[in-house]
């Protein structure tokens, strides 16, 4: 720090890389005083004239407003209020073209001026040194002060930092050609500016205050030196004229030699930079209780008869300013290949300003110049960027870049839309000063390519963030659905198990509920079967017996108790029926005997295996019988179904469930039989 201060005292400043020396053209307006303009008919006030959010409306259509009355307010710190620049009636609140390069429309308040200029009551502050820090910041916020150098950052946020910073830098450089607004303000209002600086001093308590001013403003330098001669802390530093000395980062480097790290703010290096016009507005607000309602605007260019600096009320349409300074539009007569038919009007300087889309665009807090050039004065403003040739890689652009970038390589990557390479080449360190495009021999609109590329990259980053969030949500949802599925399955299993348990619970007569249900079903089934199968021979039964023994090994497939019990019950019932009808005693006796065996053993729930075997035997018998009868293909199925339908009337819900299960199983069995029959018929037909 010490070395920096010593060098500043000796006026040995640093320099930044690059920079250009365009023709200054400041003499058009620098020797005339600031003019007061007559009131316009209507004021158009955009709700947002700063970086941040717009405030909430306090007035509605038809309200009468007084000069200095607040029109918006907000609790949000990034919102800066706007005030009525003169008294009048709010005639409309609607979208209108704003002062922005895009030419888009935003919400604006239209005030019809009543030409009476009535102030709202104000309170003059006699001694601002008695105010506390919080009071000052609140006053600055309520007065709607934003950075007036061009960026429009809310001032109350910028100065709302812990006191005892290293440097307070006042930006009086005004490096852009044509603009003399700050120059004239300093000549005429240097005392008020110094008052503003004192207020900032009280707020921030910097170790040093540096006013950076270019050498092409001799009268302003004298005025400032005179106004600050009694204040030790303030140093008026005269810098050589170069564009863009007035850029925040470049000014810091010149005055203190410190480079602000990329992506950080100057406050992180303990430096605060403020424009002189903002200082003037601060002093007006704190001392005179005047909110930000007007500013100095340089209206210049050779297409005007009387170019001059003016005090313009915020919200004045550009047409009013041009009228008052005698704008005469050039008509395009002979040159046919030029796309422009009349004079352009630029808001801002020639290097960083934007062309104004229509005459209703209003002056806002950040407008410092209206430029109306002639074709001979500024031929490239009339071209519409149609002269672009291929880049010949001459390197003049990187020679002049104040951020030490490589505009040539940025341009290749921007044309190729190679976003990775652009970020690697530090595209976002570009300050849009326009020096590269100014010197390019191939007349490539470099800044335009960078702006488009920056917008594309920002948009892509937004989309990436959104897709990341969507991905996280999707993953969470997937997890949740899976969990729910598993929980559902658990529930089903539990319910099934509990059902099974109740089904298998032993009832009073020794058999389980399921077996009772199965027995009832089987009885019904057997009845039907017996009705259909009265004429069976004993020979078939013998064959069946033989078949049974060979079929026994296949029985172990039957594992489930229900199946075997159902089958056993069917067999029992059948046998009973057969016995009743007295058909083929020996076979029946054997079958009856077997079935009795099955019956007795089925009553004993411990002999599951026996039951299974017996059931298998019975099943095989029944199968064989069914196979013999070619005709009765469908009947067993339907008969079983009918029998099952009859049974539920006497049983409870569990029986019904068991019945459904048995039905399904019988269907499967019948299907198998059908298939087998088809197979056998196919074989026979072959």
């Amino acid at each position: 720090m010490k070395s920096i201060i010593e060098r500043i005292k000796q006026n040995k400043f640093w320099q930044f890389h690059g920079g250009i020396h365009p023709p200054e053209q400041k003499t058009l307006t620098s020797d005339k005083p600031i003019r007061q303009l007559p009131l316009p008919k209507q004021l158009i006030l955009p709700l947002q004239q700063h970086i941040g959010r717009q405030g909430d409306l306090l007035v509605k259509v038809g309200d009468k407003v007084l000069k200095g009355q607040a029109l918006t307010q907000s609790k949000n710190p990034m919102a800066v209020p706007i005030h009525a620049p003169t008294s009048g009636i709010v005639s409309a609140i609607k979208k209108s073209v704003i002062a922005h390069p895009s030419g888009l429309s935003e919400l604006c308040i239209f005030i019809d001026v009543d030409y009476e200029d009535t102030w709202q009551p104000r309170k003059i502050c006699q001694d601002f040194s008695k105010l506390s820090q919080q009071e000052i910041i609140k006053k600055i916020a309520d007065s709607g002060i934003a950075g007036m150098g061009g960026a429009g950052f809310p001032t109350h946020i910028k100065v709302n930092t812990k006191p005892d910073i290293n440097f307070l830098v006042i930006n009086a450089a005004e490096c852009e050609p044509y603009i003399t607004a700050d120059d004239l303000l300093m000549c005429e209002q240097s005392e008020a500016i110094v008052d503003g600086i004192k207020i900032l001093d009280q707020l921030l308590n910097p170790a040093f205050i540096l006013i950076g001013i270019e050498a092409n403003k001799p009268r302003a330098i004298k005025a400032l030196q005179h106004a600050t001669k009694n204040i030790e802390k303030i140093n008026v530093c005269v810098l050589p004229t170069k564009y863009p000395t007035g850029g925040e980062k470049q000014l810091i480097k010149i005055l203190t030699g410190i480079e602000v790290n990329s992506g950080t703010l100057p406050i992180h290096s303990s430096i605060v930079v403020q424009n002189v016009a903002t200082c003037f507005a601060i002093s007006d607000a704190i001392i005179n209780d005047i909110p930000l309602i007007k500013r100095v605007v340089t209206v210049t260019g050779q297409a005007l008869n009387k170019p001059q600096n003016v005090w313009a009320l915020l919200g004045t349409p550009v047409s009013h300013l041009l009228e008052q300074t005698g704008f005469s539009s050039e008509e395009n007569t002979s040159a046919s290949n030029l796309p422009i038919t009349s004079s352009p009007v630029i808001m801002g300087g020639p290097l960083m300003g934007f062309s104004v889309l229509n005459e209703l665009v209003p002056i806002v807090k950040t407008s410092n110049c209206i430029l109306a050039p002639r074709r001979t004065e500024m031929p490239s403003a009339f071209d519409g960027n149609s002269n672009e040739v291929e880049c010949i890689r001459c390197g003049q652009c990187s020679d002049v870049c104040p951020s030490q970038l490589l505009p040539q390589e940025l341009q290749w990557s921007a044309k190729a839309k190679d976003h990775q390479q652009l970020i690697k080449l530090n595209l976002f360190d570009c300050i849009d000063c326009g020096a590269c495009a100014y010197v390019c021999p191939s007349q490539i609109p470099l800044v335009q390519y960078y702006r488009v590329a920056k917008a594309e990259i920002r948009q892509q980053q937004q989309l990436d963030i959104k897709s990341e969030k969507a991905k996280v949500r999707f993953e969470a949802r997937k997890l949740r659905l899976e969990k729910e599925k598993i929980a559902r399955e658990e529930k089903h299993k539990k319910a099934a198990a509990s059902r099974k348990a109740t089904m298998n619970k032993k009832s009073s007569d020794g058999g389980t509920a399921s077996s009772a249900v199965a027995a009832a079903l089987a009885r019904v089934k057997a009845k039907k079967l017996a009705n259909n199968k009265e004429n069976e021979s004993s020979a078939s039964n013998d064959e069946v017996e033989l078949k049974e023994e060979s079929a026994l090994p296949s029985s172990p497939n039957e594992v489930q108790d229900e199946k075997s019990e159902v089958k056993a019950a069917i067999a029992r019932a059948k046998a009973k029926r057969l016995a009743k009808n007295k058909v083929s005693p020996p076979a029946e006796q054997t079958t009856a005997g077997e079935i009795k065996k099955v019956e007795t053993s089925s009553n004993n729930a411990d002999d599951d295996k026996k039951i299974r075997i017996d059931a298998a035997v019975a099943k095989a018998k029944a199968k064989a019988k069914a196979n013999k009868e070619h005709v009765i293909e469908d009947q067993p199925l339907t008969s079983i179904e009918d029998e099952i339908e009859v049974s539920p009337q006497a049983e409870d819900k569990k029986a019904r469930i068991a019945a459904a299960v048995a039905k399904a199983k019988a269907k499967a069995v019948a299907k198998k039989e059908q298939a087998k029959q088809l197979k056998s018929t196919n074989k026979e037909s072959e």
Partner: protein
Amino acid sequence: MAFWIASSPHNHNQTETSALMRLVIYALLPGILTQWYFFGWGNVIHISLAITTALFCEFIALSLRSKSNTKKLSNQIFDGSAILTAILLGICLPAVAPWWISIIGAAFAILVVKQLYGGLGNNPFNPAMAAYVMLLISFPIQMTSWLPPLTLINIDLGFANTLTTIFTGFTSDGYSVEQLKTNIDGFTMATPLDTLKTNVGQGYIISEIVQGRIFSNNSSTSLGLSLGWEWINIAFLAGGLILIAKKAIAWQSPLSFLLSLFVCSFIAYTISPDSSASTLFHWLSGGCMLGAFFILTDPVTGATSAKGRLIIGALAGLLVYLIRTFGGYPDGVAFAILLCNMAAPLVDQYTRPRTYGHDVEKVSISEAKPIKQGEVK
């Protein structure tokens, strides 16, 4: 008021690429004039042939491409880049090379080396040098039949004679190119560089070799280095210095090229003074100054950063010296430059300057240069 949206900046310093090219062409004129004085009309005729072919080829290529862009064709053809390439090629050719050499060379340079790679600003190799190398390798006899300066030729070689030699291979009296090259004693005369190389190879020492007529001719205008060629190189040096003064080219490449040639010849001289030529000989012979100021500084094919240009220049100097001393060809400027064009993208990648705000710790405050207090007008 006009109602359209234009992007800043709205002002421009009104320099144009074609103006840059024109300036370079003007700076070549002293060298061309000197060449005409010493070697006759041959190169001037070649330059004219090359310009005609180049413009014709450019017209063909741009017409084929004009469906996609809307710029006026005449603006593009006459923006000076094709003419400049043709002039550089014409200067490099031997004075009485056949007419089809320059036509093939110019067509190759424009169509293949420049337009096939994308047109203006997109060619990786210098078109004139690439075409020269192609001709040298494809037609070695025609490209190495260098005439000695006019004062040493016994046969009168006026404009008409040169014209007929170029177009027919014989003068109007019937002398062939070979006979033009032979001096009274019956030895064919080669260029100074060629002579030096062969004689060193045969074992002569430098001080003996430079006594030859091809080097000094004992005339009052000779510097005693290489007759004719020395003045041509001085003329190109003058043109190059004018370009640097006008900020049309960067000074880093020529300076480091000449410096590295100096260093190489100095080292060689300390090692073996009798068989190494002096630095001034190297600087003022062959295509050294032309290459240093007009070809190495071609912005399209050179490096972009200052550090990169220094590296490329040094590399070129080293390669020229190596090819001249150890290589097969007497003059290595064309090959060295092509090799450096190949190396330029890699050099660019590794010599990017530090951006403002990055790696700040590496920059100390003491490094920053102080400036004088701004003068109050």
